[in-house]
């Protein structure tokens, strides 16, 4: 194991969010969530603590059923925790949601089939008139620029069924950013894509993120994806869903493809894989 990695791994095996709670953009404290179904209970989240800085890119990494999607939705105010609190820059998640603080990018593109690309990327921001004190969506020219950035400039007037899966997911990505929300919640957005498209999408995402300065919570089960994208990777374990480790990634910014060949990258990948395997054995 390289010096870089061992130096960044927290000594405590059940770490609490490493960042300073006073400056945190998102802070999750002591969150428990139990799902009940037909008298059976599943502990989706147990004692979860996590702090995210403004503009930070954090991945939630773990096997299926470890509660990463649940944690994402608890942060976004879509699922209420049974115990514990979530604070979004001084607001509760549901108040933050009313203030249009969140952009959600789901696993499937979930585009509106009757609207063109151009209308789809603006669909969410057009759904609701904004009242005072709410977060404003990106201005039109900025959204147009995002469409160009992801290479869909020629497909503005195409309908979703005319696009490939990768193109649809790019539309979904732009739609997430077009809200201009300070926090982006991404739930395995690239899971259904082929490996080559997926690799391209990572760098597109990084480019958009760098340009907008958004705080990102990114759910994934791909170790390499988590490492190349993130400032920190939160390793989660299943049954009960919990945070097993938090690993800061010591790669510089901006990230590029060459970094995927760097020893530091591979050290991180190896270390995270060991962490995940620890949870399984």
């Amino acid at each position, binding site marked *: 194991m390289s010096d870089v990695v061992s130096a960044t791994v927290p000594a405590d095996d059940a770490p609490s969010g490493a960042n300073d709670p006073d400056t945190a953009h998102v802070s999750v404290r002591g969150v428990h969530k139990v799902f009940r179904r037909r008298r059976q209970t599943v502990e989706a989240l147990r004692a979860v603590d996590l702090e995210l800085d403004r503009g930070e890119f954090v991945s939630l990494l773990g096997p299926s059923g470890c509660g990463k999607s649940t944690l994402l939705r608890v942060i976004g105010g879509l699922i209420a925790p049974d115990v514990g609190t979530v604070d979004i820059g001084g607001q509760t998640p549901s108040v933050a949601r009313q203030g249009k603080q969140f952009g959600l990018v*789901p696993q499937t593109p979930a585009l509106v089939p009757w609207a063109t690309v151009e209308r789809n990327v603006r669909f969410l921001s057009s759904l*609701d008139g904004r009242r005072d004190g709410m977060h404003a969506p990106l201005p039109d020219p900025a959204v147009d620029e995002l469409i160009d950035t992801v290479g869909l400039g020629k*497909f503005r007037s195409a*309908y979703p069924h005319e696009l490939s899966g990768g193109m649809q997911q790019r539309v979904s990505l732009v739609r997430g950013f077009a809200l201009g929300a300070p926090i982006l919640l991404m739930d395995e957005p690239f899971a259904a894509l082929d490996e080559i498209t997926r690799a391209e999408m990572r760098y597109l995402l990084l480019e958009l993120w760098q340009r907008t300065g958004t705080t990102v919570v990114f759910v994934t089960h791909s170790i390499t994806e988590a490492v190349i994208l993130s400032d920190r990777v939160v390793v989660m374990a299943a049954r009960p869903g919990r945070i097993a480790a938090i690993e800061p990634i010591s790669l510089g910014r901006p990230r590029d493809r060459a970094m995927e060949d760097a020893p530091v990258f591979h050290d991180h990948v190896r270390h995270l894989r060991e962490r995940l395997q620890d949870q399984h054995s």
Partner: protein
Amino acid sequence: MTIEMHSQRDEVVVPGLDIEALLAADQARARRSAILRFGAPVVGVLGFFALWELGVAVFDVPRYQLPSPSEVVRHIASDPEFYVRNARVTMWEAGIGFLIALAAGLAAGTIMAHSLFIERAALPLAVLIQVTPIIAYAPAIVIWFGLGTKSILVITALVCFVPFLINSVAGLRSVDPNLLELARSIDAGRFVVFWRLRLPSSLPFLFSAARIAVGLALIGAVLGEFFGSSEGLGYAIKTAQARPIQLSLQLWGSIFVLGLIGAVATLLISAAERSLLHWHSSQRTPT
């Protein structure tokens, strides 16, 4: 097929591969499928009437039993004013009844789609309305609403109501759950979600209902005229039934005009569906 495949083709330089010939073959195939799409139905319909014409001539069927189609058409042409006047009455009743059923079915479907309790409570009634033959309670409706248009509209609306109701519940519930969650993530209001997501998602279902309801609306209107009217194609059929030997051509003329009205209405609905639902998978021909 994705748009990426539509980009201009590159020069292909593989020996033995004749792209032009393959493209020409594709075009020929497209022509054949177009002929199949438009030609086959025409052949079917014309063939049916030709066989009918032939059968009547060969077996010398008496006119009061079954006139030949050419006779029926000649009869309609001999008194177009009669058929236009009565068709107008029947079309008006069927159309208004159809629209009442659409509005009522959509309104009730909206309430049911938002409340599981109301849906569970109302569904047995809807099924009951549908399975009880309208002809059984049509006289009761005439007693309540009197002879004339009002009763006919109620009967027509009742027979069309259930398909619209069931399909609007299914359609309003058919929104992609991921889209609903996206709407929730920005705290979109119920009304906006209904107007911008649920209603457009329900259009394919409403069109299916409309295609069923066209036929039902005509049944309702004709039936209503049987019981409580002195005009319309249903009334023309009823009077012809009373004097089958003298008025057999009037019976068949009315049947022909009703069939024509139903066919044209169905074509119009299909055309509207094609232009409004071009984004929906049902409107794409398999390649």
